[in-house]
């Protein structure tokens, strides 16, 4: 046990320079965490503004044009600045080397560079908000994006730049997983979070360049009128959608796969039971990564793409349900007869399973062409998307944040407030978005500023939900920040977990582990190992 005055990565070097020039993956992870939380706040404010405006039909307090900008900025900021880097770049950066017993990632300088590129991309995005916020929606569909007078170029340049940050992280993680595992850690002894981050990295490297090219083509189209997306010049606006979704569909798995990795860790740790179907969970991550490249056309059933293409994409889409289902059932089987501890990270994990199941099932519904043509561009799609991305990824992210918080900062947060926060977020989320399934199925189109009077009660209920949701997050911000200053000192292994990051002190030392890392057990050997007072003992 280390004393309270122990040297760790947070206090070994001091001053702003020691942060800005750090090559320590933990500090870079923390800097990413800072960036993504600010982005989450920004995107969240946009979301609350949108819901506030939708409280009543007609104008409440912002104009229709401002409203268009608000939902675009909400989407673009949440996707490109928050949700894509949130788990891999912030939490993943911190825990990946620790989990495999490494001192750092394979390319520490590339890691720091990726953070600076992230910041540069964020600056472009923020500039575009000031300079005439984009009103195209986060998808930047041509031909509107090539003709609107708002600052599309700076926003897409921002997204283009952020893509490089994402690729750098992916390259780094793949090399790290291949080369830096501690002796004895074979592929099937890696924690499932590492598998998930690895699968994510593969998608980041394969898909992100296509987004880069697409956005460059869009910029060229706007700036020089090259005509590739302009039907009048022999181009094809639907081609933009193909290009865009070839990245952006796999991108939703960039977002959700690491979330699933976190859930695997949480479920096993808080059930104190060997994870059920380890290999299948690992393989299903890779399967999701591969299938994700074959289904993008399901975003385009009503775009005018050929009927044949729609049929092929619809057919392929259903395959995604299989590996996702494999994970769900394995998590449930892990919990079955486990010694379940309902600490706040586990509550996040259980919220995830509930919400992601709804998101997944409605995804299968929307993958069927006949239903999609009816539901397309309605609130049903908005609700489905938020159930997978927010109910899935964001909830998993906060589960992971609560789980590793004691490791990152060496402090415990107030558990009672944490439980209240999960409760508020869960209730608020369902109030906000379950309502939107009804709105959508009754024909309320997405992205509309005004609506028929008959939709008002449901819209109002959804907006009230957004306040409950916001209250949950404000409470979370309060107790997490409070814990940094006044929090109880965290033990090295507060949850009794077996993976390697819990075998070092909280917060870890600069090089992660003191001395050699000894690996004599699998990450989920709960039937033969247990942790009492930070000590790993054999049963």
């Amino acid at each position, binding site marked *: 046990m280390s004393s309270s005055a122990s040297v760790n990565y947070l206090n070994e070097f001091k001053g702003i320079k020691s942060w800005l020039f750090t090559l320590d993956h933990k500090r870079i992870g923390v800097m990413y965490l800072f960036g993504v939380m600010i982005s989450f706040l920004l995107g969240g404010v946009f979301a609350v503004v949108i819901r506030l405006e939708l409280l009543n039909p007609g104008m409440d307090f912002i104009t229709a044009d401002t409203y268009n900008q608000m939902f675009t900025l909400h989407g673009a900021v949440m996707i490109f600045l928050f949700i894509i880097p949130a788990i891999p770049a912030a939490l993943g950066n911190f825990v990946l080397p620790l989990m495999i017993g490494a001192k750092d990632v394979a390319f520490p300088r590339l890691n720091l560079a990726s953070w600076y590129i992230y910041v540069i991309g964020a600056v472009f995005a923020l500039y575009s908000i000031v300079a005439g916020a984009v009103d195209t929606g986060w998808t930047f569909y041509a031909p509107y994006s090539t003709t609107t007078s708002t600052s599309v170029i700076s926003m897409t340049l921002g997204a283009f730049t952020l893509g490089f940050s994402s690729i750098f992280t992916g390259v780094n993680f793949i090399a790290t997983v291949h080369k830096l595992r501690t002796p004895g850690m074979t592929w099937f002894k890696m924690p499932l979070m590492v598998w998930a981050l690895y699968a994510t990295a593969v998608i980041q490297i*394969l898909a992100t360049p*296509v987004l880069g090219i697409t956005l460059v083509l869009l910029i060229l189209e706007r700036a020089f009128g090259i005509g590739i997306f302009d039907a009048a010049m022999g181009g*094809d606006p*639907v*081609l933009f959608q*193909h290009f865009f979704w*070839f990245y952006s569909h796999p991108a939703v798995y960039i977002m959700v796969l690491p979330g699933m990795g976190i859930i695997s860790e949480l479920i096993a740790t808080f059930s104190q039971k060997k994870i059920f179907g380890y290999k299948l969970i690992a393989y299903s991550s890779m399967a999701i990564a591969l299938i994700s*490249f*074959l289904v*993008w*056309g399901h975003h*385009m059933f009503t775009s*005018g*793409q*050929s*009927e*044949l*293409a729609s049929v*092929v*994409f619809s057919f392929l889409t259903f395959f995604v349900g299989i590996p996702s289902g494999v994970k769900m059932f394995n998590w449930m089987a892990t919990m079955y007869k486990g010694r379940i501890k309902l600490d706040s990270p586990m509550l996040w994990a259980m919220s995830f399973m509930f919400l992601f199941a709804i998101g997944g099932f409605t995804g299968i519904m929307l993958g069927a062409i006949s239903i999609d043509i009816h539901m397309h561009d309605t609130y049903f799609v908005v609700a489905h998307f938020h159930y997978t991305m927010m109910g899935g990824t964001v909830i998993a992210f906060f589960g992971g944040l609560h789980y590793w918080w004691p490791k990152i900062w060496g402090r415990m947060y107030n558990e009672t407030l944490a439980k209240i926060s999960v409760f508020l977020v869960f209730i608020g989320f369902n109030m906000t978005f379950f309502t939107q399934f009804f709105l959508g199925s009754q024909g309320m189109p997405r992205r509309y500023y005004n609506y028929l009077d008959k939709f008002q009660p449901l819209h109002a209920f959804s907006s009230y939900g957004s306040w409950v949701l916001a209250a949950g997050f404000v409470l979370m911000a309060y107790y997490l920040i409070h814990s940094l200053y006044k929090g109880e000192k965290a033990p090295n292994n507060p949850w009794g977990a077996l993976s390697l990051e819990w075998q070092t002190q909280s917060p870890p030392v600069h090089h992660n582990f003191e001395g050699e890392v000894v690996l004599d057990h699998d990450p989920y050997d709960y039937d033969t190992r247990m942790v009492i007072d930070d000590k790993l003992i054999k049963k």
Partner: protein
Amino acid sequence: MTENVHSHHHILPLSLYFTIAGILFVLTGITVGVSYYDFGSFNIVVALTIAVIKGSLVALYFMHLRYDNKLYGAILVLSLVFLSIFIGLTMIDTLYRGEIQPIEGSVINENAIIYEQNK
């Protein structure tokens, strides 16, 4: 680092390079030759087949892929597979854009309310 690179370095006889170069010239000649014939929709298949053979020769011998770690070859093939998925699935749309399936179903109940209203 240098030592590592050196141990993988594979020196090929000069004659092999010239042989490959010769084959490339011949294939270029064939490309020009076949351009005088019209194979209809197979024009592009013929041209691309020759181009793929040439590209593979360059990658395998001039770029030493054949003697390098198999991982690099796998990565090259994988990226080509993904490119073909990208272009292939997109072409399922662009090639068949206008084609619409004929309606094959028939009305189950002509007296249903939905048809009553139209009468």
